[in-house]
């Protein structure tokens, strides 16, 4: 007897149902673990890929799918639209229009199991090479073969993936439960780029710790933000403090002569940063650094916008390389002489890192992140308030005895950022700058409204680029109202967004308040002076402090 092959997604679909039916983490993990235990490698690895957020290439136009689905269901455009409004999701709308009702295929029908991988490879991926007519015909065929939920999943996969409240961390935990392979090993093996093949799955769950792939990074240790009193996390002396840089967090790996530069998003960024590769090449083999790539002007970091010019630009030219030079600032040493150091305490790893960077002092492109220690929290707070002048975003706080653990583990690493307040203020006075900019008016005083009056609230001189400075300078010269000494008062017309770290009451200021570390966030060309903030609005920020 001829058995009908119904190319189903039954197993994966059941997993999806189970994940969708609960919001309890442990139940999600248990459902995935069951699934991994009972699924062949060809199926499981595709599920791992999808659940970790890997996406299929875009193959069929979303608009076309919508058009064909409407046509097949006999539903005019406006009615499809009304359905979509009720459902809120195109894949689900299609599944309900085409797969619902009593005529949907029964799972009890005689069908052959086809695993997810074969299904994806034989049914979905070939759509990429088909013309529209073939795509339509094949989709129509699939719609008659699949259950509503399978149709939903198929369109989610075609449309770039789905969310079912599962993170890579949970997938790894489930794989760990199903296979007995330690979670950190699994997480490590899932880093970087891989293809969903049964061979990769076999490596992934192989019990022998095995040699690490030459390019493979470790799961990044991530920090939690500190939102309350930092003393709540224990004595300051338990922690190592570093500047929190606004660059590109990366792992720099050299194994068997192969150099890899991985960004936090697990992108290989080798080609964007050739000078970092040269630095890495000068280091001994078998090392992995947890580091930050920073644009560096010789003394301090350049703004992130400069670094952005380098990012995503493969094989940068000489001009760009000299305009935006980058350095590697090393935070941590994760692997040395081929040994995984993650089980060592931070103090120990930093000691090894210090020795390594000492030995390579001559490498201009390599810096060690400055480690600071404080006996008391107020000292740490004082350091944090200097972050802006350092060109940093705040402080990183790392437990001195902490091991290097992948993911956002609580209580190991903290980030203590300066969080700027912003107000819109009017340029009221200007003064010439110093040094290179002595010929330009670059130091500004900004004001906010109290009734009909503008009251000075902040002085700031950084934050504009050269073109903007020249433009503001020209405005000042043309619109000077009075000059007293080096200071000019100008027609209140230009509005800027001013960012600052803190605000407090002050009897020394006419406005009655003082802001700390003000800087120009951006020029609000879209606003007129009358639209600037009022003093009352600024004072309201005080209330947000405590």
């Amino acid at each position, binding site marked *: 007897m001829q058995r009908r092959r119904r190319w189903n997604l039954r197993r994966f679909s059941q997993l999806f149902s189970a994940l969708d*039916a609960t919001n309890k983490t442990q139940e999600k993990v248990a459902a995935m673990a069951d699934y991994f235990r009972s699924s062949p490698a060809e199926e499981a690895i595709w599920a791992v890929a999808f659940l970790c957020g890997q996406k299929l290439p875009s193959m069929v136009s979303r608009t076309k799918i919508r058009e064909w689905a409407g046509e097949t269901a006999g539903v005019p455009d406006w009615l499809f639209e009304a359905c979509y409004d009720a459902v809120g999701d195109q894949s689900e709308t299609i599944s309900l229009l085409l797969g619902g009702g009593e005529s*949907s295929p029964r799972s009890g029908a005689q069908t052959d199991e086809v695993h997810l991988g074969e299904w994806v490879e034989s049914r979905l991926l070939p759509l990429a090479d088909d013309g529209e007519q073939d795509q339509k015909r094949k989709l129509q065929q699939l719609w008659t073969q699949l259950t509503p939920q399978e149709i939903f999943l198929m369109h989610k996969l075609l449309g770039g993936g789905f969310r079912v409240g599962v993170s890579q961390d949970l997938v790894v935990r489930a794989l760990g439960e199903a296979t007995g392979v330690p979670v950190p090993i699994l997480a490590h093996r899932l880093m970087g780029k891989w293809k969903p093949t049964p061979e990769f799955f076999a490596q992934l769950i192989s019990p022998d710790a095995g040699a690490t792939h030459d390019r493979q990074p470790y799961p990044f240790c991530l920090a939690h933000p500190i939102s309350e009193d930092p003393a709540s996390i224990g004595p300051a002396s338990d922690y190592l403090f570093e500047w929190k840089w606004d660059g590109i967090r990366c792992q720099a790996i050299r194994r068997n002569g192969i150099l890899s530069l991985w960004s936090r998003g697990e992108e290989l960024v080798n080609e964007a940063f050739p000078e970092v590769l040269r630095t890495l090449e000068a280091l001994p083999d078998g090392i992995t650094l947890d580091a930050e790539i920073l644009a560096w002007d010789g003394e301090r970091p350049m703004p992130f916008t400069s670094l952005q010019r380098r990012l995503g630009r493969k094989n940068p030219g000489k001009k760009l390389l000299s305009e935006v030079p980058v350095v590697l600032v090393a935070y941590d040493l994760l692997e040395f002489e081929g040994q995984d150091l993650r089980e060592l305490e931070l103090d120990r790893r930093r000691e090894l890192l210090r020795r390594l960077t000492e030995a390579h002092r001559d490498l201009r492109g390599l810096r060690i992140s400055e480690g600071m220690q404080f006996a008391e929290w107020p000292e740490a707070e004082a350091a944090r308030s200097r972050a802006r002048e350092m060109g940093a975003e705040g402080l990183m706080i790392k437990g001195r005895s902490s091991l290097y653990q992948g993911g956002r583990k609580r209580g190991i690493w903290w980030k203590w950022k300066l969080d700027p307040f912003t107000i819109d203020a009017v340029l009221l006075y200007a003064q010439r700058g110093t040094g290179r900019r002595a010929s330009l008016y670059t130091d500004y005083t900004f004001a906010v409204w109290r009734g009909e009056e503008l009251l000075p609230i902040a002085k700031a001189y950084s934050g504009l680029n050269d073109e903007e400075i020249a433009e503001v300078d020209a405005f000042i010269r043309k619109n000077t109202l009075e000059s007293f000494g080096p200071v000019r008062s100008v027609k209140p017309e230009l509005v800027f967004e001013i960012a600052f770290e803190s605000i407090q009451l002050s009897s020394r200021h006419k406005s009655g308040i003082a802001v700390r570390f003000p800087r120009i966030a951006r020029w609000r060309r879209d606003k007129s002076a009358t639209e600037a903030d009022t003093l009352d609005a600024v004072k309201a920020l005080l209330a947000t402090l405590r």
Partner: protein
Amino acid sequence: MAKVDLLQLRPEGLYCEIGDFYIDPWRKVHRAVVTHAHSDHARWGMGRYLCAEEGRDLLAARVGTASLIQGVAFGEVVHHRGVQVTLLPAGHIRGSAQVKVEYQGEIWIVTGDYKLQNDATCTPFELGRCHCLITETTFGLPIYRWRAPEAIGHEINAWWRANQSEGRTSVLLGYALGKTQRLLSLLDPSIGPIYEHGSSAKLTEIYRATGCALPPAKNPTQEPKGTDFAGSMVLAPPSAVGSSWLRRFGDVRTAQASGWMQIRGIRRRGAVDRGFVLSDHVDWPSLLSVIRESGAERVLTTHGYAAIVSRYLVEMGLDSTPLETPFTGEANAEEEEVEPAPV
């Protein structure tokens, strides 16, 4: 000569001028024909009520004035000022009726709420032919196509068994009138004990008293202190979620049975663990087939997607307009059971 509409919309409700009565009025009137006992159709304070005999006691429980209610058998013709009024079964809940109004050969049918699917707790829907059909469109979108209730019943029983095997109590939420009894009829009492909330118990009693056989369901508040409810099934209205009443059951799994559970977003936003798609309203394919087979040239729509269904019918060549009514259809929360304040 232009024909006068047999029924027209008045501030009080849908009115038959020739017969001088209202159908499911929402303000106090002297004479009301009531399709069924849900609160958006059956309101307190009418002078006299006419309803299907099958639903008479339920309506009395809802509006409180049994002596004013006249029950008639399905299919019996009531003559009133030259108008013939016939109640046809609507299959929505026990005693739910469609109202057929006939005058000098012109026939209008008001469906009330209805469904075509099997439901052991009420007389099945009966199609009537008419010139003008006033139909509900609570689920009037093509995404709403119901699976067989027997299959949903199997899923519910399987869910109950699975919870039981984990030592948990199953709490299944549905409206006290209609849904609870239909769910009860789908449960397999051999799995374990069934309990029901006090708000539906007296209605369930009326179902039984009027000839509807249902598995027994106990009132949990009347069980001795310290009773272990693990493994049992509890039927409760949606308003029981988060109440102290629910606490007695210990480790529970909750589910809701409603047509809205068809939509994943609604299912997930709800406070329950599981959603079963079980509705007492007509779905899209049945709606279209009823309209077609009624022979109506004119279709007026109420509830939910009235405007959309109407536009679709116009594109199909029918005369159709939506009617503005305060009917709520299958409320997504517990609204269906909220008794509106007397106007």
